[in-house]
C-alpha cells in the first residue's frame, strides 16, 4: 500500500482539523432561535397568552357573560386622559379595568377569555391544515408521475376558489343543516361539540379545509427535492419500505420549512376568524372572541374607542408574536445561515 503524500486530516489552513463536532440540526436551530431576541419575545408572549387562556377563571374575576345593563358602556376613569373628547357623555366606573361593552359585560374578562378562542383557532386550524396538507403533498411528491400530476391539478383547481367565500358557503351549510338532526348520530355529536366550543368547530374546519392546499404544495415541493437525495436512494437500495422512507428519512428533513410556513400563516387564520365574526358567521354569543369584539366595537369606535382598541391591541400583539416567532424559526432553520451569527 502506498503511503499518502499528505495527512488528510491536516488539510485546511494552519493545520486545523477538517471535521468539527457536529450538532444536530435541531440543537443548532434551537440555539440560534434563542439568540434571536425577537423570536424569544414572540415565543414568550405566546406562552403567556396560553397561560392566560388556561388560567382565565382566576385572572378574569368578573364573569364574561354577565350583563349588567346599568353598567353599559362604562368607561374607566383613566381613559379620559387619552380620549378627552369622551368627557361629555361617558359614564365612569372603576369596577371595570378596561371598561364595559354595550350590554355591560367586562371588557377585560372578555379579552382574557377571548384569548381562548383566538389561540384555539391559531393552534388547531394550522394542525388540520398541516395534517391534510402534509399527507396529501407527500403522497403526491413521493410517487410523482401521473399520481403527482393529477393530485396537483386538483389542488390547482381548489386553489382558484376564493377561500373566504368557500368558508361562508360552508358555514351557511353546516349551521343550517344542524337544526334537524337526531340525537345519537355522528352529526349530532358534531353539533354538540360545536356548541360546546361556542360555535368554533366549523370555523376550524372551514379554515383548515381551505388552507391545506398551500401546505400540500409546499410539502410536495420539499418532498420532490429531498427525494432525489442520496440518502433516500440508499434507503431504497437496502430495501426500506415506502412508509419507512417517508417517515424516517424524508419527513424529518422537510418538517422545518413546513412549520415555519404554518406559523407564518397563523396571523392569517386569526384575521379570518375576525372577519367571519365581523360578518356574523363567527362564534355564538355570549362566547367572546377578539374578532367579534372588534367587530362589535368598531361600530362604536368614535364614541367608545376602548371597546375596539383593546381587543385590537390584543390581536395585534398576538399576531406580532407569531410573526416574530415564525421569522425566528425560519432564520434558525435556514441551512444557509448556519454557522453565521
Amino acid at each position, binding site marked *: 500500500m502506498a503511503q499518502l503524500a499528505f495527512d488528510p486530516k491536516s488539510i485546511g489552513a494552519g493545520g486545523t482539523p477538517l471535521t468539527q463536532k457536529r450538532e444536530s440540526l435541531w440543537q443548532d436551530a434551537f440555539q440560534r432561535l434563542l439568540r434571536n431576541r425577537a423570536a424569544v419575545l414572540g415565543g414568550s408572549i405566546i406562552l403567556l397568552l396560553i397561560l392566560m387562556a388556561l388560567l382565565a377563571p382566576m385572572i378574569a374575576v368578573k364573569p364574561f357573560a354577565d350583563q349588567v345593563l346599568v353598567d353599559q358602556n362604562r368607561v374607566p376613569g383613566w381613559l379620559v386622559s387619552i380620549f378627552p373628547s369622551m368627557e361629555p357623555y361617558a359614564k365612569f366606573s372603576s369596577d371595570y379595568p378596561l371598561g364595559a361593552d354595550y350590554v355591560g359585560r367586562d371588557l377585560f374578562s372578555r379579552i382574557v377569555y377571548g384569548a381562548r378562542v383566538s389561540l384555539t383557532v391559531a393552534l388547531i386550524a394550522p394542525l388540520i391544515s398541516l395534517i391534510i396538507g402534509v399527507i396529501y403533498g407527500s403522497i403526491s411528491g413521493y410517487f410523482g408521475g401521473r399520481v403527482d400530476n393529477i393530485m396537483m391539478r386538483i389542488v390547482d383547481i381548489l386553489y382558484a376558489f376564493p377561500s373566504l367565500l368557500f368558508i361562508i358557503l360552508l358555514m351557511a351549510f353546516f349551521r343550517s343543516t344542524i337544526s334537524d338532526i337526531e340525537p345519537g348520530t355522528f352529526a349530532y355529536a358534531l353539533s354538540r361539540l360545536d356548541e360546546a366550543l361556542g360555535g368554533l368547530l366549523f370555523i376550524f374546519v372551514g379554515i383548515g379545509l381551505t388552507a391545506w392546499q398551500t401546505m400540500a404544495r409546499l410539502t410536495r415541493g420539499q418532498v420532490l427535492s429531498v427525494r432525489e437525495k442520496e440518502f433516500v436512494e440508499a434507503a431504497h437500495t437496502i430495501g426500506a419500505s415506502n412508509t419507512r422512507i417517508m417517515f424516517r428519512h424524508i419527513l424529518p428533513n422537510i418538517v422545518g420549512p413546513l412549520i415555519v410556513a404554518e406559523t407564518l400563516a397563523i396571523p392569517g387564520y386569526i384575521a379570518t376568524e375576525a372577519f367571519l365574526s365581523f360578518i356574523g358567521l363567527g362564534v355564538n354569543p355570549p362566547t367572546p372572541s377578539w374578532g367579534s369584539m*372588534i367587530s362589535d366595537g368598531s361600530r362604536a369606535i368614535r364614541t367608545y374607542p376602548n371597546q375596539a382598541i383593546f381587543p385590537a391591541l390584543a390581536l395585534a400583539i398576538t399576531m406580532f408574536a407569531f410573526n416574530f416567532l415564525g421569522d425566528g424559526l425560519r432564520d434558525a432553520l435556514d441551512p444557509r445561515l448556519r454557522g453565521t451569527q
Partner: protein
Amino acid sequence: MGRYIIRRLLYMLVVVLVVSMITFLLMHAVPGGPFTQEKTLPEETIRILNERYHLDEPLYVQYASYLYAVFIPHFTATPPSTSYQDDFLLNVNIGPLWIRWMNFGPSYKARGRTVNDIFRDNLPISAQLGVMSLFIALLIGMPLGIMSALKQNTALDYFGMGVAIFGVSVPVIVLGPIFIWIFGIELKWLPPTGWTAKPPFFLGFLPSSLNWEFFQHALMPSVALGLGSSAVIARLTRATLLQTIREDYIRTARSKGLHERVIITRHAMKNSLIPVVTVLGPLFAALVTGTFVTELIFGIPGMGKYFVTSITNRDYPVIMGTILLYAVFLVLANLAVDITYAYLDPRIRYD
C-alpha cells in the same frame, strides 16, 4: 411562449368549469332560497318566480343552461332586447348576424340589474381601488424591505419590520374608521366617504377623469387596504434581498470594486423581485375581491359586498358570477406572474 400561453388559457377553462360545478352544487345544497323573506310571499308568487328563473327545473338542467348561457357563444339573427334575461357581455354585429357571448343571468335580489350590469358598473371601481392599493403597497413595502435588508439588525431594520407587522396585524375594520375620524372629521383634510369615478368608464374600467378630487377620495381607502399587503411585500423583499446579497455573484461584483448602489439596483434587485412578483398575482386577486370591508367603511360602490351578500341572499347568478370572476382573475394573475418570471430570469424557459 405563445403555445405555452395558449395551453395555460385552455387549462384555465378547465379550472373555471370545475369551480363552477362545485359552486353550483354547494350553492344549491345550502337551504333557503332566493325568495325567502320576512313577509312570506304567497305560494303563487313564489311558484311564478321560480318558473321565471327556471328554478323549478332539475339541477342538471339548470346547470347545463347556465353553462350554455355563459361559456358558449350564441349565433343569432335577433338583435339584443332589453329583457333582464337577455343581457350578454359581448355583442358583435356582423351584417344580419349577431354573435353574443357570456350571459351571467339576472340578479334575483336586485330586480333592476343583471350580473353583467354589476360587472360593468361595480367591478371597475373595485379594480381601481385594488390597483391603487397595490400601488401603495409597493410604494411603502419595497423601500421598507430594501432598507431593512441593507441595514439588517439595526434600529432601522426593526422599525421597518415593526411597521410591516403593524400593517398586517391591525385589521382594516379598526384602521379604516380611525383614518376617517382623524383625517375626515377632525382635521377635515380628506372626504370621509365616496368615490368620484362612476360609469361610464374610460375603456370600460378606468376612471373618466383623474383629477385631484379622485385622489382625495381614493387616498384613505387605498392606504387602509394597502397597508396589509405592503407588510407582506416588505418582509418578502427583505428576506429575498438578504439571501441575494449573500450570493457569490454579488461578492464577485463587490470584489470587482463596483459601487454598492449599482450592485443593489442592477444585480440584487432583479433577482429579489421574483418572489415579490410571485405573490403579486394572488395578492392582486385577493385585493380586488377582499375589498368588502374597505368598501363598506368608506362607502365605495364596488363589487366587494356582492361577494358576501350574494351568499346571504342566495342570489345564485351573482354567487356564480362572482366566484367565477375570482377564479378567472386568479388564473390570469398567475399567468401574468409566470410570464414576468421569464422576463426577469432568462434561465426560465417555457415550451
